[in-house]
């Protein structure tokens, strides 16, 4: 199997641009979705956007996690199951929401500000989306990722001290580690 490997220094320079917690999107104007996918980072910093408003939503979700992304085609696909919504945007959002994220080394450590839960329920999975300006239920997604949520020792992708979420209680993301691989095969 053919393999591409990236030197550590090369890879380090990519983290902050791909995650983008503390930089904005570059000022390139292109109206196609594909271009937004190219240019809007995963945690586009508020106020840093140059051409489009990338809205970042990191949702803590109840209910069964989908087996794949095929049913998550729009921003509103599972909106009824959102327990907590950490959000910012590259245009006027909360610039401090993910500012404590460390995205200059691997694994990237995602941290957030406190946000109140909007519903009570059991956290089962997370849904990380990047959408367009002021997303509605039908808005397409530039980027998305899903993973399981659980207690320590369960093998969940995101570990919590308790998965019992209470409406009105404040929660934050601390040290959610995401590794960007240095070796790719094809």
């Amino acid at each position: 199997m053919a393999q591409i490997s990236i030197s550590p220094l090369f890879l380090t320079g990519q983290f902050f641009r791909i995650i983008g917690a503390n930089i904005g999107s570059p000022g390139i104007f292109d109206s196609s979705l594909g271009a937004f996918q190219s240019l809007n980072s995963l945690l586009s910093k508020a106020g840093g956007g140059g051409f489009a408003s990338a809205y970042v939503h990191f949702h803590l979700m109840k209910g069964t996690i989908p087996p794949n992304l095929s049913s998550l085609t729009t921003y509103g696909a599972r909106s009824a199951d959102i327990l907590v919504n950490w959000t910012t945007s590259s245009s006027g959002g909360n610039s401090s929401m993910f500012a404590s994220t460390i995205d200059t080394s691997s694994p990237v450590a995602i941290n957030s500000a406190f946000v109140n839960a909007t519903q009570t329920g059991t956290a089962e999975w997370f849904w990380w989306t990047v959408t367009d300006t002021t997303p509605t239920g039908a808005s397409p997604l530039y980027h998305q990722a899903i993973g399981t949520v659980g207690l320590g020792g369960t093998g969940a992708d995101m570990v919590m001290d308790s998965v019992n979420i209470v409406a009105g209680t404040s929660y934050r993301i601390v040290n959610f580690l995401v590794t960007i691989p240095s070796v790719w095969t094809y």
Partner: protein
Amino acid sequence: MTILFSSSLVNLVAQRGLLETFGLGGGFGTTSTNTSISIYSGAQPLASDVVTGWSPYTSASPDFLLHFMNARWGRPTSTSPFISLGVFPGPATAVHDGAGTWAIIWTSAITAANVAGATLPSGTFIVVPVSDLVGNGVIKFNPNAFTTGTPYSIAEGVLGVAAI
């Protein structure tokens, strides 16, 4: 479960990862940054192997075959599912006999003198496969067998998103 990312992430990595590192800040076109490409025979190492031990990979090594300069990368549109050589480097003369199997793509203008030196020329590079035209190399030659003293040109240089 493993975290599932949308395929759009590949596009993001291609643009804000690879192309920006190669000097193309956004959108599309060809970079104005001259990069260099060193061609080797033998087993392909990891990039981390090259970083931790440069001496087996200098141009004095019998596995070192060719060194190209002034290669520029780009992509034709902002949604193209690949990056490719937009400006091909001129021919390079083989310094050893052998079949090219892997390459170092330097993200800056690394000279022949640099790769002859005892110090790693730059810490910013990727290690990729090399093949003939029908193989699956990122860098392709026609053919990929080289004879000392003979000049050769790169036939194709494509890093597709399916390979990223």
